[in-house]
């Protein structure tokens, strides 16, 4: 909850390009990222974007491929708000927010009906065409809400996917016509195969407040903007999906400016994320 006076002060700050914490409008808050934080998953990551904190775990399971894409695997995305975020996120409020975040995340990662063209090439999850594949479950848990949860979730998902390793599977062909091929899953972690993730985007949320366009809003700032665009951008700067939020309309000129900002800010953000992923193997297990 904010007073109209605080709202005015914040909006004026955005217009002057000096936000309450000293950032400019195109500045992200300090990002902290660790991968491999949940050792019982196939891949995981923990992200802190300012005060917003998200943990993502990726799990894989053997499944049957969809008839439309017999050589591809399956991917499911879900987001949950933890009660740790506060009593106000229990019950309906939390589940509603979680559902809308999951929908936006899934859309940014979506593959075509043949399993190709998505954030992750789902054919890499195929095992036996038409019969067996990997189903990948990407679950996000939001631990603390301090604005811009969607971007934080997308960064954590990207990092968790980069951390994901698929168990190595050897397929022995069926001997007779009626026999099934034999699958053997190799339990040895060192034999597992890392998932390729060059096309996984990050969602950059750009919001409009008067004539200012701002990224990475903290919780207070979210109450001061008119409308937002959630833009999924890849490392190359191409757009993977756009959704709009907020009651105000966005005119075409503003839309173009906001897309331009996302294409400018997105690749830089992904660069920072990739650097963190490269250096961010969890030290939690080795501490004390």
């Amino acid at each position, binding site marked *: 909850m904010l007073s109209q006076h605080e709202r005015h002060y914040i909006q004026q700050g955005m217009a002057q390009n000096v936000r309450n914490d000293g950032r400019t409008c195109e500045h992200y808050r300090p990002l902290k990222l660790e991968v491999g934080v*949940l*050792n*019982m*998953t196939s891949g*995981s990551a923990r992200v802190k974007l300012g*005060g917003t904190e998200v*943990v*993502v*775990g990726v*799990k894989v*399971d053997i499944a049957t491929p969809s008839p439309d894409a017999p050589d591809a695997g399956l991917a499911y995305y*879900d987001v*949950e708000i*933890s*009660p*740790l975020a*506060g*009593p106000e996120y*229990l019950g309906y409020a939390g589940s509603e927010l979680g559902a809308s975040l999951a929908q936006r995340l899934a859309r940014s990662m979506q593959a075509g009906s043949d399993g190709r063209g998505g954030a992750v090439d789902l054919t890499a999850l195929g095992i036996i065409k038409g019969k067996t594949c990997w189903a990948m*479950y990407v*679950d*996000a*848990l939001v*631990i*603390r809400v*301090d604005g811009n949860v969607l971007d934080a979730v997308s960064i954590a998902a990207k990092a968790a996917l980069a951390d994901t390793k698929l168990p190595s599977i050897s397929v022995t062909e069926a001997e007779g016509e009626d026999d099934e091929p034999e699958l053997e899953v190799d339990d040895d972690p060192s034999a597992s195969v890392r998932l390729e993730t060059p096309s996984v985007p990050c969602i950059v949320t750009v919001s409009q407040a008067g004539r200012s366009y701002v990224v990475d809003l903290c919780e207070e700032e979210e109450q001061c903007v008119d409308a937002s665009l959630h833009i999924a951008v890849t490392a190359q700067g191409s757009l993977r999906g756009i959704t709009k939020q907020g009651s105000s309309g966005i005119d075409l000129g503003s839309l173009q400016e906001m897309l331009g900002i996302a294409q400018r800010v997105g690749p830089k953000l992904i660069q920072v994320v990739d650097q963190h992923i490269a250096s961010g193997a969890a030290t939690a297990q080795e*501490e*004390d």
Partner: protein
Amino acid sequence: MEFVSPEGLRLDGRRPKELRKLRIKLGSLDGTDGSAFVQLGNTKVLAAVFGPRGAPTGARSSAISCVIAVSAISVQGDRRSKERLGRQATEFSRALTNAMEQLVPADILKNACIDVHVQVLQADGGLFAACANAALLALANAGVPLRDICAACHTGLLESTALVDLSAQESMQQAPQAAILYECRTQSIAIMQTDNKMSTTALEELLELATEGCIALVTAMRQALISSTVQQLSTSAPHASAAQRRD
């Protein structure tokens, strides 16, 4: 599968009376009045306390409310196990709420409400003991008065050996199991949960082992609380001379 080898070693190499590696971290969650992270082996839980604050206008049945959440990332593989654990969590949070109502002095609970929220981050057995420990540590971290320092521990009887702090694999057998929440000063059991049928001798053996386990855990919890308090004392030391100079 052999759960206890002839040499007396369990599947993960522990001895029967050996607890898994314990890690406690207090006050790491911003935006809460108190928080505690507890890790026992692969089981990780994080608890947060909101309050005490004035009672809200809506009616509430109890001044303390405890919620234990199990998320999709917490359980391995099968998604049905998340639902099963979720149901157990709801049941256990009621027992934990009752215990906390006894532990927090009445004058604190009057006209106030306290929310204790526990999130299971990773489940590998001994789940509810970890949740109880985290919840109590979080209350202490928030400065909520408690009548006694307590700890919870989970035990089971496998292959005629009483084992402490069962992993998920060990708990999945239909063996007798007992988990307790133990109050150290009064030396009494505040909560007791048993699974599967067992003889009274077996129960006694498990309770005795669980008590030992709780006492060991309390020592570690106490250390963590004191260390955290000492650190906060150190950083917030008053600036007597500096203030005088400015005034």
